[in-house]
């Protein structure tokens, strides 16, 4: 990790509670631009919550969270921290792509329309340009011929690839993936991971929540193991996945493998 660059994500003792229930307790983590970070951990350990905090779908309860050097959801003014207006929050979200476990494509729009919706309506891109770029993105995820298909007419793997293209259409500087292959039939997992691997080699900064340890081993620069709302262990995949130092990590890995 080169110390000079501004971290893409910097979490400092981030806490998040839902009423009485504490989902994140003191999560500290740094994500370096251009790197792939895989989040692993048992169900309910707070992985999804942490991702959602990064693009402010959830508001943190304590600590400090920065994306690309700027606070998430707040701004600092004369030493005071103030809440951002919804419009400013939305503007920052545009720069962070998110891919969901259940795809969440818009069912009433075709694949291409799904992709160009936000560029046209939010970034005010010209429609013809957005369409051209949308087609290029579809080609990139191997779906050039399915531009006119509705989500219901696509397989799960194809839907997730469209969802990735939709997120990329906003030209994000950071991509968040929340278990992108967990809802897929086993034979469709590979095609989605392949797109993600390709994205990683192109230098996209990615945070990936996944149970695909094979993917983590190949594509990740850093693997983070979370348990019960805490970061238990951080390290390169070679060490963390094969020789973890913590007992809990070892126990989790033995169950997943």
């Amino acid at each position, binding site marked *: 990790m080169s110390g000079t660059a501004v971290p893409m994500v910097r979490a400092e003792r981030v806490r998040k509670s839902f009423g009485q229930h504490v989902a994140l307790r003191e999560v500290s983590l740094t994500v370096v631009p251009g790197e792939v970070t895989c989040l692993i951990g048992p169900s309910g350990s707070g992985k999804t919550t942490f991702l959602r905090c990064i693009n402010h779908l959830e508001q943190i309860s304590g600590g400090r969270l920065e994306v690309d050097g700027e606070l998430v959801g707040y701004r600092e003014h004369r030493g005071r921290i103030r809440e951002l207006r919804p419009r400013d929050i*939305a503007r920052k979200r545009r720069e962070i792509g998110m891919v969901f476990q259940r795809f969440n494509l818009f069912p009433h729009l075709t694949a291409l329309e799904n992709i160009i919706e936000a560029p046209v309506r939010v970034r005010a891109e010209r429609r013809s340009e957005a369409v051209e770029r949308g087609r290029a993105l579809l080609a990139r995820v191997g779906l050039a011929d399915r531009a006119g298909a509705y989500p219901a*007419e696509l397989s799960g793997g194809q839907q997730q690839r469209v969802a990735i293209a939709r997120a990329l259409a906003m030209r994000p500087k950071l991509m968040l993936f929340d278990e992108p292959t967990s809802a897929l039939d086993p034979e469709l997992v590979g095609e989605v991971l392949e797109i993600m691997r390709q994205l990683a080699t192109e230098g996209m900064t990615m945070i990936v929540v996944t149970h695909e340890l094979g993917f983590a081993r190949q594509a990740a620069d850093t693997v983070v193991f979370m348990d019960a709302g805490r970061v238990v262990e951080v390290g390169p995949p070679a060490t963390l996945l094969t020789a973890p130092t913590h007992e809990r990590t070892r126990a989790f890995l033995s169950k997943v493998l």
Partner: protein
Amino acid sequence: MTTADASPPPRGATTPATDPTPAADPALATDPALATDPAPAPAAGAAPGTGVGVDVDAVPLRHPGRWAAGVAIGVLAAMGVHSLVTNRNFQWGTVGDYLFAEPVLRGLWATVYLTVIAMAIGIVGGIVLAILRMSPNPVVAGAAWLYIWFFRGTPLLVQILFWSFIGALYPRLSLGIPFGPSFVSGDANHIVPLFAAAVLGLGLNEAAYMAEIVRAGINGVDAGQTEAASALGMSRALTLRRIVLPQAMRTIIPPTGNETISMLKTTSLVSVISYNELLNATRLIYARNFQTIPLLIVAALWYLALTSVLTVGQHQLERRFARGTLARVGERR
């Protein structure tokens, strides 16, 4: 008609290859696998040894109850028709005279017009109310709740009368700065004429009901849709307009069709404030010539005709929107 609903006509009766008994079990008689397959599957329930030929040679199950009900309803229907034709008090000639009479047609047009405008107010108002009701601002949400509570909690007839007498409550209406100077003002009975009273009474009440329908439709859209839109940087308003409402339409349209059919008949209530729609038009005629029954029949026939047209239209709409439900299936694939 009603007998047909209770027991579907045996489809097998028209298939030439089957036993001529009309009561043959339709499921057995029309199953193409049974009719063409020389060795039908034993699962069909045929007794051993009978499943070799082309047809199942079974004694069909009798349905004496269906026959009895059919006969009873047939007798009642015949009595009804007989009375319709022979009872001179129906005065079918008078019905025919007035069915297309000019004042009746004018009333008919007023009813259609009133329905369209009141439903337009109801739908737009309902969408606005539903959105306000879901506002994060508790005052705004509370105001919408109060509106719905009031307009659903009082009889429509009372509301219509209230609007027609608004002149007594606020003799002068004016437009201006609250508690400040007014720009225009006028006599309430001129500003709120009969038509406005009728349309406001029906439309504002309908908005309260439509609000609940729209809200249910919006709540029915998967939360992941809003989440995905937010993650793309779409604002709340844009998400609602482009993502949530188009999907909610699928569940909003069928009950809206019902509301429209219901509204068509409910417009007759404004005859109490002498707004000249279909019912009032016929009432005015029988007040002069005392042909009460034939003129009420004229009104009833027109209401039936209009609701029938709307029902057909509603089926058409529902069929169109049902095609989109395939999208639901694909979500989990």
